[in-house]
């Protein structure tokens, strides 16, 4: 059984408050008594009770990680990264799934406001709702945003430059194949990230070729990716380079290419998004525009922890550039 503050007080023959003052190096206790208590604490390997400490300091040593959904394949890496950085500093992480609902998000933010969490990392792309702004205006310095844009206020934010992803993908494909516009296969075109990738990709194609190629959108899974190939291969001069923003779709597409008797990358070049396990299992390994999510999550967490410790932070907004990780598909 772990030794408590009470036990130490009994052993030293002093009041509990005296033990607390001695352990916390506060005035109001003689050097002699202090030394005696510290020796006892050391001898019995006394560890302070985090919960009791939290109650006294109004701290929980827990941070919340709000995610807009749990389907995104990049999130497990992000979560692990946040947790690692938080644990290192003695914080626990609670996962909160807002499922894209502002009401659910408001519920979790309520807990933050009531000090059930010390801070929160908020991931998502939707415009901020009232609850969120209200909390931000309290200037408690306990929120960091990941991939979330705010119109009204400045909060510490870590962002991926999605437009740069589209630009990189286009440039990479045009390096090898610079006459015919490459094909763009998008997921949900209504999502901000997809809009930005599309804009970067199309603008770059137009700059290089004077025109942009065909676009398929709403292609999010393997079957839909598979189908895309049959739509293009019927054409006279199908595009030979393809940028796919969802790796599941890329998986289907490459299966279809191979089924059709063609080779990747000799006949068709494909570039995907994010180095996740799908990119790994595709053969040859998928070339991707990689988002440094793990690094971003780690740095966002470190920033939050700095803020909670009331330390200075160097920059409010940090933008992460994507990079091409070459596999065998281009």
């Amino acid at each position: 059984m772990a030794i408590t503050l009470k036990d130490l007080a009994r052993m030293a023959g002093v009041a509990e408050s005296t033990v607390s003052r001695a352990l916390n190096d506060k005035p109001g206790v003689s050097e002699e008594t202090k030394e005696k208590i510290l020796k006892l604490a050391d001898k019995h390997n006394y560890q302070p009770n985090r919960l009791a400490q939290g109650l006294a300091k109004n701290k929980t040593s827990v941070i919340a990680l709000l995610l807009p959904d749990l389907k995104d394949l990049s999130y497990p890496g992000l979560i692990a990264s946040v947790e690692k950085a938080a644990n290192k500093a003695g914080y626990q992480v609670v996962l909160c799934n807002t499922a894209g609902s502002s009401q659910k998000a408001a519920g979790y933010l309520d807990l933050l406001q009531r000090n059930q969490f010390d801070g929160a990392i908020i991931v998502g792309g939707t415009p901020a709702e009232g609850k969120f702004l209200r909390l931000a205006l309290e200037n408690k310095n306990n929120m960091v945003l990941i991939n979330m844009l705010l119109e009204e206020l400045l909060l510490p934010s870590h962002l991926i430059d999605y437009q740069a992803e589209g630009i990189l993908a286009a440039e990479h494909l045009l390096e090898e194949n610079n006459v015919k516009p490459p094909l763009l296969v998008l997921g949900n075109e209504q999502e901000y990230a997809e809009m930005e990738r599309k804009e970067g990709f199309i603008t770059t194609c137009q700059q290089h070729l004077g025109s942009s190629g065909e676009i398929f959108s709403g292609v999010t899974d393997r079957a839909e990716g598979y189908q895309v190939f049959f739509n293009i291969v019927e054409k006279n001069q199908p595009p030979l380079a393809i940028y796919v923003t969802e790796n599941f779709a890329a998986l289907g597409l490459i299966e279809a290419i191979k089924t059709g008797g063609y080779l990747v990358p000799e006949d068709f070049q494909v570039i995907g998004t994010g180095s996740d396990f799908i990119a790994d299992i595709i053969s040859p390994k998928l070339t991707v525009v990689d988002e440094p999510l793990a690094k971003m999550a780690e740095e966002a967490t470190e920033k939050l922890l700095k803020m909670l410790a009331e330390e200075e932070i160097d920059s409010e907004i940090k933008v992460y550039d994507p990079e091409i990780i070459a596999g065998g598909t281009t």
Partner: protein
Amino acid sequence: MANVTLENVTKRFDDVVAVNSADLKVRDKEFLVLVGPSGCGKSTTLRMVAGLEEITEGTIKIGDEVVNDVPPKDRDIAMVFQNYALYPHMNVYDNMAFGLKLRKFPKDEIRRRVEEAAEILGIENLLERKPKQLSGGQRQRVALGRAIVREPKVFLMDEPLSNLDAKLRVQMRAELSKLHDRLQTTVIYVTHDQTEAMTMGDRIVVLKDGFIQQVDDPLSLYNYPENMFVAGFIGSPAMNFLDAELVKEGNEYYLEGNGAFKLKISEEMINNYPDITEAAGGDIVFGIRPEDLSDTSLKQDFEVTEDNSFEAEVEVVEPMGSEIYLYLATGEHNMIARVDAESEAEVGDIIKLGVDQAKMRLFDAETEEAFITQSD
């Protein structure tokens, strides 16, 4: 097109009353400024209009619609705060457009709105630039542009200029006023800075401790403050308040400053504000703005007599260029006079100060309410 109406609006945080039964009608297309010291309830009032703060009692209407339970995003408002985020990887166009993109506006509509806002703000030629290539004023305009593209019924601004340096703040003040003329939209603007309030507001609401003190146009507020708080808050340097006794001699009334001064109250003033006479024989507060005290050694607009002047010692001289601030004392009274730059008064001099009788203001020593108010 939108009026904003607050009817009997109260906000309590636990036991603290932040806003106390506020009644306010913001007119369509008006630039209304809420001003007061920190903790007066101005930001809370704005946030209740925005929907960021629930109201404890009362009703808020935007246009004809009661919005008590309408979430912020559906209130047709746009908010501008001092701390806004310009995203470094996006150009000016995208920094203004992303809110509309996130709300899934059609591309053409986004382009129309951003271009229109850019033109209004005079930043059409900056749309391709990144934030780091912009000056402070240009950045501020982009932040305003982000609000303008939403084409809201009402703009709510909470100290949007307080992060800027003094020079830029003066420039942006004028720009915001011009912008309001062009936009023809209702603006509710919160500031703690009375100069900002005076220079920008069509009307000003002065708040203190959660209570609305006075709602008026800038000049009325300056010339006819309804109480000592408003009188002291509006104007810089602030109005001088001198404790006095109201003495009746025959049919005439005098302010007697414990031996330090004796000033006659004009008959006209007594006739217009007969309530003053009720204070006779008792305490009264004499209020006079620094510019209404003059150095009588210089030429005056009025005839200097024993009844409208008194002597005081110069303690500090602050030359401001176009004028001089004199810090003076007589007996127990201290005051500031804003006199012509030609004044040769020096520290230690005893000078004769002239009081423009028409500008004398009188306050009830107990209630601090003004005797002299604007005649309707």
